[in-house]
C-alpha cells in the first residue's frame, strides 16, 4: 500500500510540474504571438550582445560556427556569447531565455536543435525586443514576414542540391554502373531528408546504378562505422559506392571499409569537407570522389551579421525581398582536383569576415545568396 500511495503522490507531483510547465510556456508564447512587429529604434553597439547558439561543441562543424561568431564579434567590436545546447532543445531554449533576461539587446544566430524549437525561440526574442536569424531548421510554415522584423531571416544550404551534387559525383566515378549504399542522418531531420531526396534524384539519371539501401546512422561516426560494417556483410563484394549525408558518418564508413580491406575498392562521397576528409582527398587516387564545400564559420557569421544589421537599423527587414528572409545560400560541389580552391578560405577566417562586412550577408564569395526557401523536394 505504501508503495502504491507514494507512487501516486509522485505521479501527481510529476503531472503538476508538467501542467505548470506547459501553462508557463503557453503564457510566454501567447503573449508574443500577437501582431506583426513594427520598426524599433536602432540599438547601439555597446547595448548589444551577439549570441550564437549551436547544437553542441564537439562536432567540427559546430566548432567552426563558434569560430565564425567570435571572429565577427571581434571585427564589429561587440560582445559575443555562445550557447551550447548540448544536443537538447530544452537546454537551448532555457539558455537563450536566460540571456534574453540579462537586459542587453540580443542579435541571435541559432542553429536550432529541432525545427520545432524555432517558434518558441522566435517568440521569446520578439518579446525581448531582440533580433534572430535561424540557421538550418525551422518548420516550413513559419515565415519571417509573418512574425515581423524581430525574426529577421531563415538561412540554410540546400539539402537537395547537396545530395544531387554528391550523388552525381558518385555515379560518374563509377562510370554510371554499380551498387551503392547511403547513410542518412537523424531520421526526422529535414537536412538529412532533403539530402537523401537529392541523392536519390541524382541517381535517376543513371539507370545502371542500383541503390541497395539507405540506412540512418544519426550523424554519428561510431554508428556510421557499425551500419557500414553491417551493410558490407549484408552485400558481400557488391558495394561499389557509399554516400553519406555528412562527413561525420563518412569518417566511420571509410574506417569500416579500411577494416574490411575494401577502402580502395569503394568510392565515397559526402557533405561538408571536414578537415580529416580534406586529408583523405589529398591522397593520390583518393577514393573520396566528391564533396560539398560549405563552412560553419561562414554560416554563423552570415546569420549573426544579418541579425546585427537589423538590430543596428542598417537594414529594415520589412522592406527586404522574401528571398533575403527565407534564403538558400550557394553550396559548392568539389572534387579531388579542385577542392583546394575552396579550402583556401579556411586559412584566413578574419580576411573572409572582412569581405563579408564589405559586401553584406548576401553577396559574399564563395557563398552568395542563390535562392528562396522553403526548399522543395524533387518531384513535388
Amino acid at each position: 500500500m505504501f508503495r502504491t500511495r507514494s507512487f501516486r503522490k509522485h505521479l501527481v507531483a510529476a503531472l503538476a510540474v508538467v501542467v505548470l510547465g506547459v501553462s508557463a510556456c503557453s503564457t510566454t508564447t501567447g503573449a508574443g504571438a500577437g501582431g506583426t512587429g513594427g520598426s524599433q529604434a536602432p540599438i547601439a553597439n555597446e547595448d548589444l550582445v551577439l549570441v550564437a547558439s549551436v547544437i553542441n561543441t564537439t562536432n567540427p562543424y559546430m566548432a567552426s560556427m563558434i569560430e565564425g561568431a567570435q571572429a565577427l564579434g571581434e571585427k564589429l567590436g561587440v560582445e559575443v556569447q555562445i550557447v551550447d545546447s548540448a544536443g537538447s532543445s530544452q537546454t537551448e531554449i532555457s539558455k537563450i531565455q536566460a540571456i534574453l533576461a540579462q537586459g542587453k539587446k540580443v542579435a541571435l544566430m541559432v542553429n536550432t536543435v529541432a525545427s520545432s524549437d524555432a517558434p518558441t525561440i522566435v517568440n521569446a526574442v520578439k518579446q525581448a525586443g531582440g533580433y534572430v536569424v535561424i540557421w538550418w531548421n525551422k518548420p516550413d510554415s513559419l515565415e519571417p514576414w509573418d512574425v515581423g522584423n524581430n525574426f529577421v531571416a531563415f538561412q540554410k544550404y540546400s539539402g537537395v542540391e547537396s545530395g544531387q551534387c554528391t550523388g552525381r559525383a558518385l555515379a560518374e566515378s563509377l562510370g554510371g554502373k554499380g551498387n551503392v549504399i547511403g547513410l542518412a542522418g537523424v531520421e526526422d531531420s529535414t537536412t538529412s531528408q532533403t539530402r537523401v531526396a537529392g541523392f536519390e534524384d541524382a541517381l535517376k539519371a543513371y539507370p545502371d546504378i542500383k541503390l541497395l539501401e539507405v540506412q540512418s546512422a544519426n550523424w554519428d561516426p561510431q554508428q556510421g562505422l557499425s551500419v557500414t560494417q553491417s551493410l558490407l556483410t549484408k552485400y558481400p563484394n557488391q558495394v561499389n559506392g557509399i554516400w553519406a549525408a555528412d562527413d561525420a558518418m563518412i569518417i566511420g564508413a571509410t574506417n569500416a571499409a579500411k577494416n574490411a580491406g575494401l577502402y580502395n575498392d569503394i568510392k565515397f562521397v559526402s557533405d561538408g569537407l571536414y578537415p580529416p576528409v580534406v586529408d583523405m582527398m589529398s591522397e593520390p587516387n583518393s577514393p573520396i570522389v566528391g564533396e560539398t564545400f560549405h563552412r560553419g564559420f561562414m554560416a554563423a557569421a552570415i546569420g549573426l551579421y544579418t541579425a546585427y544589421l537589423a538590430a543596428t537599423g542598417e537594414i529594415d527587414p520589412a522592406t527586404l525581398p522574401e528571398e533575403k528572409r527565407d534564403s538558400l545560400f550557394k553550396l559548392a560541389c568539389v572534387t579531388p582536383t579542385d577542392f583546394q580552391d575552396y579550402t583556401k578560405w579556411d586559412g584566413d577566417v578574419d580576411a573572409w569576415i572582412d569581405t563579408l562586412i564589405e559586401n553584406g550577408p548576401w553577396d559574399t564569395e564563395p557563398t552568395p545568396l542563390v535562392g528562396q526557401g522553403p526548399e522543395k523536394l524533387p518531384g513535388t
Partner: protein
Amino acid sequence: MANPVTREPSEQSVSTGRRTRPHHRFEVRSLGEVGALAVLIIVFFAINPSTFLSIGNIRTILDQAATPLIVGVGATLVVLMGAIDLSVEGVMGAAGMAFILTTENSRGSVDLGPLSFVVGIAMGAALGVAAGLIHTRLKVPSFIVTLGFWFVGLGIATVLFGTETIPLLPDGGIKAWPNETFLGLPHSFWLAVLVIAVGWVVTRFTRLGRFTYAIGDSEEVARSNGVGVARTKLYVFAVAGACTGLAGILATLRLGAGAPTVGGGVLFLTVAAVVIGGTSLGGGRGGVLRTTLGVFMLTVLTNGLILSGVDSSIQSGVSGAVLIVAIIFAAWPHRSRLRIVK
C-alpha cells in the same frame, strides 16, 4: 531472475557465499534468455540464409558486441551491489580522448607508446574512484553521482578535443589490431572474452565478488557480517571505471578517430543488457555471463534488423517491441517468483 533455490536463508552468510550450485544456477535460470537469443538467431537466419550466419557477419556481430560487453562487465558489478553507473558514455569519451592524445595521432600531441593504454584506463578508473568516493563518503546516491560524472567525463573529453582538428590514428599499426583475427575471430572480441572471464572469476571466486553480492542482498546484513561496505563499493566503482576506460580505448581504435561522443548509445545498451540478462536492478542477483547474453541479444537484434532490410525509421520501434517480447519470454518461468516489480 530470482530462483528461490539459491536464496535459502543459510546462504545469507557471506563466507559460504553463493557458490553452492554455480552450474545449476546459471543453466536453469538462463534458459529463457538463451532461448530468446536462439529464437532471434533462428529468425534472422531464416530471413537472411546467405548472409546472417556468414563468417563475415559473425565477425561483424562479435566486433560490434565487444565494446558493450566490456562496459557490461563493470556495469554488472555495480548493479549487483544495488547501485547503478550512468556515467559510462562520458567516461568512455574522456578515456578515449586521453588515449588517442597520448598515442601516435594526426594531431601529433604526445606519443607515449603502450603507456597510452594505461593513461586511458587510468582516466576511467580515476573517474570511477572519484564517483565512488562521493557516493560512499558523502552518501550521495549512485544514480545522482554517476549522472553528474557522465557530464564531467563528457566535459573532460570536450576540453581535450578542443577546437583543433579531429585527432586520427595512422593507418595500420594499433588501429588495425581490433579487427585482425585470432582463430578466425576478431581481437576486439577476444579482448571482451578476457574481460568477461576476469569478471566472472572475480564475481564467483573472490572476496570482492562475494561482498558485492552480499551488499546487493542487504547492506545492513553485509555490514554486520564484517564486510567493508564503503571500501568494496569504492573498488567496484574503480573496476567499473577501468572497464569503461578500456571500452573507450577500444571504441576509439575501431573508429580510428578521437571523438568525445565515442560512447554514444552505450549506456542504454549496457543497462538494457544487464536487465535483459536477468541481473536484478535491486542488487544481489545476476552475474556477468547473464549480461553477456543480454549484450548479444541486443547486438544480434540491431545487426539482424539491418540485414533484414527493415526501414531505419521503424527500426528502433521494432527493436523495442522485439525486446519487450524477448523479456516476457525470458522471464516467464520466473514470473511468480519476482519479488519486486518497479
